[in-house]
């Protein structure tokens, strides 16, 4: 359990570091990837809705603390994204290797749109509608492009941090 918490924490900090440094130079048509969405959805796919929601909450809160906007909006968004992605994975019976990519794209697009609606209702977002749609679609596309690289890496890390079960007879 402790090992899982440390590993998840390290993954979140690494994601935030890369998002605020390296990916500033690697934008896709002016838009950065939403790495916290990517991490949350991948964890949800691998571990289910409970882990997805918890990781989403932690990742969202960590990102919120680095923003100057009201804290909690990203945490709320990613909690719901993690739970929904984990739930969706349980109901979709498919062995297609494209499934994680599709789930990341759809989850990121829905989550970013939800975030913008909440931020708009709190009077914290005044971006034009066209820009909001552009960021939603491009961040989803960027997430989908990164999934084939990030998914196997995270799967390895997460599976390595699973507690080993001891069966006693």
């Amino acid at each position, binding site marked *: 359990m402790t090992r899982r918490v440390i590993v998840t924490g390290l993954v979140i900090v690494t994601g935030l570091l890369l998002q605020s440094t390296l990916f500033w130079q690697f934008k896709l048509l002016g838009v950065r990837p939403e790495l916290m969405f990517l991490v949350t959805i991948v964890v949800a796919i691998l571990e289910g*809705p409970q882990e997805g929601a918890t990781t989403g909450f932690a990742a969202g809160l960590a990102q919120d603390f680095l923003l100057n906007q009201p804290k909690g909006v990203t945490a709320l968004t990613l909690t719901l994204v993690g739970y929904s992605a984990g739930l969706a994975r349980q109901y979709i019976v498919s062995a297609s290797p494209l499934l994680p990519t599709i789930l990341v794209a759809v989850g990121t697009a829905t989550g970013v749109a939800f975030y913008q609606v909440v931020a708009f209702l709190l009077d914290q977002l005044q971006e*034009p509608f066209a820009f909001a749609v552009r960021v939603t679609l491009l961040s989803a596309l960027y997430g989908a492009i990164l999934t084939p690289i990030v998914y196997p890496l995270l799967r390895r890390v997460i599976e390595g941090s699973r507690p080993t079960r001891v069966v006693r007879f």
Partner: protein
Amino acid sequence: MAIRRRPRSTRLLVVTLVSISLAVITLDYRQRDSGPLAIAGDAAKTFMAPLQEAVTTVTQPIGAFFSGLAHLPSLANDNERLREENAALLTQVQVDAAQQVELQELVDLLDLRDALDPQAVAAVVTANGVSNFEYTVTIDKGSADGIELDQPVAAGSPDAQMLVGRVVAVTAVSAEVLLIIDRDLAVAATIGDTREAGLLEGQGASDLRMSFFDSGTLVEGGEPVFTQGYELDGQSGVYPPGMLIGQVSRLIPSENETQQYVEVRPAVDFETLRFVLVLQTPGSA
């Protein structure tokens, strides 16, 4: 039994996390810059600042290399020569060129400090905001170096003193600068030749938008836009007067006779901004 109880516990967990998120939003909305959440935010930024600086130091050459590769088509002459060299040498050339640019930027910054404010603090941009909807940069100087809230931030050279933004958050070892392109930032400005005054507001990824105090203003494209000094109740404005903000890029036809707007392209290239100067004497340069 156990199978039926598991989804319920997951739903309970989600409801709890959503409730905590809503409580955090409400609490932060009420307390803003004071209270435990603001302290936690400062602690998170203090924790991340040295890590961001380290990652930037490591990844900067990688970014410069790929950025250089992206610009190779426009460097046709250099291409001929570089094509004969191997990949290692190509990398070295890119790194050297980046270092020359950095050196020139630092020399310009020193000259700018002498010209603008000898007490100003030079800083390195170590990171950028984590959101696609917030336009900030993190610098490697904080309250321990004399950085305070609302201090103006500049870049460029004595010949081109350019406004970057304003300090909006400070920790002991780092500070966050809200860029002039952010929607939460507004600057009193004048158009170069006409000296007509107006209010310049950030538009995010788009050019800045300037509305005029006088509706009959005649403006032409390409005219430079500068910060305007003012004094209100004996207090001078945040930004020193005469700093370059950008050039008029588009005239927007007015929908009514009382409103007139122009778009202004910022002079600073925020994508490549590396060094800045935090002015210690706001409004008095």
